[in-house]
């Protein structure tokens, strides 16, 4: 899977070796494990199930995303990631087919070696498919880093992420290749984007 670059000449368009396995856990309705190089995320989906009255939405399903870091408790960083993953999944799912129901997506970080948010997005998409939930579009996550020499590196490792001057994660829709979600850190010029 190679990415098309438009302006800057990238040093490396090749992504790290990636692997995916579905239906690995017995209890969740859908589960998937997604590995990008050494970064590995395990996802489990429960739903459609009963929803708490204070959380129910009358015409659509309520999606809840939980990201558990490898070590420690959930922090503000995980909450920001949960918001990104949740809104992307809500746009992809046909939630109006399951009103007054809850869908729970749990992502467990098994190892973080860079590109964590995109690995979470990919694992989430595979798990939602494995659960058989109706989706209007499929999406994939990809992370790019711009290093000090203004070279674009796709799918950076943790070391490359630390040294780069800008880090961007995008969720791209499979059909029209449009951007569904974007989360960036660091400054970059308009052309680089």
């Amino acid at each position, binding site marked *: 899977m190679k990415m098309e670059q438009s302006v800057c000449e990238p040093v490396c368009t090749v992504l790290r070796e990636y692997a995916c396995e579905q239906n690995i856990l017995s209890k969740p309705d859908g589960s998937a494990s997604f590995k990008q190089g050494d970064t590995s995320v395990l996802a489990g989906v429960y739903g459609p199930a009963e929803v708490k009255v204070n959380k129910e939405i009358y015409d659509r399903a309520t999606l809840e995303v939980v990201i558990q870091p490898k070590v420690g408790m959930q922090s*503000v960083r995980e909450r*920001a990631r949960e918001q990104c*993953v949740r809104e992307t999944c809500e746009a992809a799912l046909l939630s109006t087919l399951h009103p007054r129901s809850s869908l729970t997506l749990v992502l467990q970080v098994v190892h973080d070696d860079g590109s964590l948010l995109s690995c979470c997005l990919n694992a989430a998409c595979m798990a939602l498919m494995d659960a058989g939930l109706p989706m209007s579009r499929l999406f994939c996550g990809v992370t790019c880093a711009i290093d000090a020499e203004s070279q674009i590196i796709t799918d950076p490792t943790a070391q490359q992420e630390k040294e780069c001057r800008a880090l961007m994660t995008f969720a791209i829709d499979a059909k029209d290749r449009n951007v569904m*979600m*974007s*989360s*960036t850190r*660091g*400054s970059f010029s308009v052309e680089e984007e």
Partner: protein
Amino acid sequence: MAAGFKTAEPLEYHRSFLKENCRPDGRELGEFRLTTLNIGSINTADGSALVKIGNTTVICGIKAELAAPSTDAPDKGYIVPNVDLPPLCSSRFRPGPPGEQAQAASQFIADVIDGSKIIKKEELCIEKSKLCWVLYCDIICLDYDGNLLDACVITLLAALKNIQLPTVTINKETDLADVDIQHKRHLHINKQPVASTFAVFDDTVIIVDPTAEEESLASSLITAVTDEDDQICAFHKPGGTPLSAEKLQDCITRAVMRHREIDRLIDKVIESTKPSK
């Protein structure tokens, strides 16, 4: 009669305005609400600013404290932002620990501070490995009417321009810090990031500066933060419907224009507070 239609079918109500290229409050699609800024209103804080974008009111207070720098960055100080959405600002926020929106906003502001290098953390260091400043930036929303992130970034920037830190010297004999309140200095601001938020309706229409109702009906929200060199410090689109590259480019162009307006506003307010000091 219009009020009945608005309550029963809010999306159709807004669509009927968008078809005529305007919005229920009379604005154009690309028009921001009136932005007002007040600096230095909190005397007990070292720096403060209050911004109002339409009805959305956000206040930022910065307190500076002394601390030891961390071992892996001995020549850098800390800036700790915290965004609080109390139940006062809107009925959608309940009392208790910060909800997801507040935490995501705090993380966003922390990323903007790091990414745009608004101030050099080395400037906050007093003595390497011994003493540094910690700036606790508390951003509190007093009235939530949409477009929270724009207001937070403007108020943070204005408060950082307003803050005055006393000079600190380390007494060689006692090894204790000597704080001189009489001599204060401003911080050197490297970059001035300004945020612009857009809401997307029905995957096609993009409007600028959404109110709270428009935000709840939009299919996607985009926040673009630009600095004065037209570099993008953050491009935040937390999910939602897919958008093509041209539409994203339009958003960035509009954000650059907005940056100039806000720059002029902040400079004007800072100038006006100078003679009274």
